[in-house]
């Protein structure tokens, strides 16, 4: 935490940089009217000011005015080196399920190496929990992400040996990630992202009627090219490829081996490298070479087999097209923390010699 550090902040939502104002004004969210109220806290005691700051927000100056009014946690400025993680992948590839399972597991069992997780944006996390985690725990298939979402899905605070660090997660619709429009606000997060989780799901041939993988992965390609175009390119930008819905591969080597191993509690660079090798081989084998593009582009990249729910959702009533999808025997997330742990290792959140080896060629 910084007490008197620089007050130059990059908004995690619109990616504009601005000087954090040095005043005692902040916005509090009014649940009744779903609006923000600007309040002056200068007359409050210091402890009260801190408490209000922890719950309050600052409106982003939104300098270019090319996105809608948005707010970031009032205490965001206090933490160094915020992490912005974007999930990239086609529609229905399992991004939302993965993120939900990942955050749920991070809260439930914690992260390796003493890294703990808490909400930085208290209201946003409460919303995320109600909208995603709770239905997921009840065995509901999660809704598709809305089009045009510009807000972050969740903003957490990680505490560990590497210090305290805000982590902002972005989860936008796969259709938005495949748009080529320069006015696409939903993918603005790519400008400020400092880690990316590329999500690929092996397709169900019975569902799609296709027996070959797509020759291009448009969401991956567009994201990689936009990240390359940033000043400094993608040097130092870690990436992860997560093969979601790997439960479909539970009898398919080499995925079966990793899925049976379950979650790992110790950071082991060699193990991550071995898994990355197997995932690479698998994707190459099934003709999904287009989805390996991030591995070729990013200097530090790991690959993982993950399963957010442990099984596919099925209709409650198979004959009713209007019935929703459920996980009738509950959820069983497997290895969903591996991508996050790899990113934390590659971004310095876990300061150890072992972490420095993760994702290295």
């Amino acid at each position, binding site marked *: 935490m910084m007490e008197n550090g620089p007050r130059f902040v990059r908004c995690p939502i619109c990616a504009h940089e601005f000087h954090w104002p040095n005043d005692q004004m902040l916005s509090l969210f009014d649940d009744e*009217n*779903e*609006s*923000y109220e600007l309040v002056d806290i200068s007359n409050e005691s210091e402890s009260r000011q801190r408490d209000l700051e922890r719950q309050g927000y600052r409106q982003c100056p939104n300098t270019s*005015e*090319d*996105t*809608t*009014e*948005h*707010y970031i946690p009032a205490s965001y400025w206090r933490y160094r080196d915020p992490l912005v993680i974007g999930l990239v992948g*086609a*529609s*229905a590839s399992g991004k939302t399920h993965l993120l939900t399972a990942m955050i749920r597991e991070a809260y439930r069992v914690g992260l390796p190496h003493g890294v703990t997780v808490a909400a930085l944006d208290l*209201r*946003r996390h*409460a*919303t995320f929990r*109600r*909208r995603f985690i*709770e*239905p997921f725990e009840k065995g509901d*298939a*999660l*809704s*598709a*992400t*809305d*089009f*045009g*979402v*510009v*807000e*972050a899905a969740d903003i957490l605070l990680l505490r560990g040996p590497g210090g305290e660090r805000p982590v902002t997660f972005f989860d936008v*619709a*796969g*259709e938005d990630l*495949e748009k080529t*429009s320069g006015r696409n*606000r939903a993918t603005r997060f790519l400008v400020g992202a400092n880690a990316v989780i590329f999500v690929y799901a092996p397709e169900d041939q019975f*569902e*799609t*009627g*296709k027996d070959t993988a*797509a020759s291009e992965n448009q969401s991956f390609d567009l994201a990689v090219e936009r990240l390359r175009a940033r000043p400094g390119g993608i040097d130092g930008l870690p990436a992860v490829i997560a093969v979601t819905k790997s439960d479909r591969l539970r009898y398919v080597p080499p995925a079966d081996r990793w899925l049976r191993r379950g979650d790992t509690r110790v950071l082991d660079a060699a193990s991550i490298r071995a898994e990355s090798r197997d995932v690479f081989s698998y994707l190459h084998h099934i003709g999904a070479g287009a989805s390996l593009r991030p591995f070729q582009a990013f200097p530090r990249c790991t690959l993982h087999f993950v399963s957010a729910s442990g099984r596919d*959702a*099925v*209709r409650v009533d198979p004959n009713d*097209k*209007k019935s*929703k*999808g459920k996980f009738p025997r509950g959820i069983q997330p497997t290895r969903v923390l591996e991508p996050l742990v790899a990113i934390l290792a590659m971004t310095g959140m876990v300061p150890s010699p072992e972490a420095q080896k993760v994702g290295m060629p």
Partner: protein
Amino acid sequence: MTDHQPEEILDQVYFAWSHDSRGLDVRGYSFSSEPEAKKWLRRLEEHLRLQSVGEVEPPATALSYIECDGGLVAVLRRIAQGTLAPGRNDSHALIGPAGILDVPAALSLSNWKGWRDEPPATWTMPRVGSRSLPNTADAIVRLRRRARELERELGVVITRLLDRPTYPLSIVGCLDEDRLAMVWGLRQAANDYLIQQHGVWRRWSFSTYQSRHDSSIKRLPEIVFLPVRLDSTGPVNRTIVDLDRDLADGRISQEAGRLVARLVHGTALPVAEPARDPVLVPSGVDGPAHPSPRQPNPAPLEPAPMAGDGASGGHRVRDRGAVRSERNPVAGLLGVRTVREFLGELNRLAEHWRWNRQVLRAALDVRAMDAIAGFVEVEARQELLSRLLKTLYGPDFEDLRDAEARKHAARLVRDTQSEQLARMVGKAAATGGAQDIFAAAFDRWSAGGHPAGLIPTGRMAQIARWARRSRRLPVAAAAAVIALLAVGFLLGRLADLAAQPSPAGSGGATTTSPTQAPVAGPGNEPGSVSPALGTATIGPVGSSQRVYAFTKVGVDYYPVGICSTQDFSTWQCPMRQDETGAQPQVVAVVVPNRQEPELRAQAASRQPAKKGQDWGSEVPVG
């Protein structure tokens, strides 16, 4: 949508999940090319998801009215089926100009038989003729009936609406089956009042189900219905009304209550003062004919919140300050009385706003355009035809003294396709005593009407039959001409739109069909009728009585609408004026309350009412 509008062709697109594109995509369309259909996917994509909210499942279907650029709108029907994941559902959109797919038309589309629940087997979908859509008037009868049962709910919502008239609404706690009626009721009860009192011109676009309503959503309709209070991560610049919790109380609620009572019970309008500068405030034809009232205690209006489109969003509203300080750029156009003025005003606007035509588009929404179209279709046509006849027969039809000219005119009356032209020549003959034209007029109408074959019905048919039975030709011909003139006012053209302080809406500023009677139409509800008012002096009226205006034709009473009063002595009654200038006999009669629904129904079905034993004496409306 009304029957007398020309047929318009509408397009349709079907959206569903596609394994090919791995996302929601176009699965059928009527456009000439796929890229055109894809553009609509981009425009509507933020409105396609039908998501559950927590434990609350989405409805089986949801209807949305979404305004897009270029005066086009989409009526979108989402279907809770598709892939396993909620939100990857199918949707079917009907797309067309806002002048055709207006809000009443969209409300009636809930019963359209053309909605699909499955993607078309081929990608081709037929274009849709506007006349194949459900009759708006029928739907309005249903909506009105339903809205009358929502008196409390309407009062609660209008109270909040009047509190922040520029803000869009999010309504929680409204039953699925009441939502369309709620939209209709809100629009019907508050639209004119908001224009007149607040200078706020709302769009009344709607969505019967939303799982998001934050400001980031482009083109989010003005009225959305939420299943529960939502957890929004972004700011929501909307008025949120919870029908299960909010109460209609306070000063504003009294105003809201009067508006609702006017809709539900047809009671008198709130007391209003004449407008200081009524022409500056556009309003629709549905609006009350009272002079525009002004706000007794003007208060600063809140800035209109963004309507979900970032920097470019916002509502088409005028705050009161703007109304008073800026002249409406199209006020002149809306006030023209002649073709010359109209063309001159058009030229002026074209020149003055050539670099800022968006200002004109902002000022000339569908209602204003309908008013102008009404002028072109009714008054300009009348003027042009008058000029044509003047050219043909001289000033005051002086040439009809000549046998050759009368022969020409008689042929014209007998055979022309134009009812209006025939009527104008017939009127001249009536004043000039030209027997051969009388005969032609008699031939025309005794043969059953104009050459297109439309047969007069109701009172007109009785008069024609009576005339045919008569062997006294001149009397019969005169009767036919009188009947014609009666038709003129029975057609119910709205009086002198251009002289009104506000533009007229789609309900009345158009040409009318020969079979229409002088009654309230869809846009002309008894609670909000009448482009012109007359007054009648009637003594005290009991609480179980109403004063009703009728157009009297012979022994028949055609209901026009309810009269209102501020002092229970002088009553203001809706009345109509024939476009030829003839003034029909309008009378005010005290009738029992219980008869009001029947009168309303007779007005809707264009039938005369039978004078009841318990009616009061008729008083002329002047």
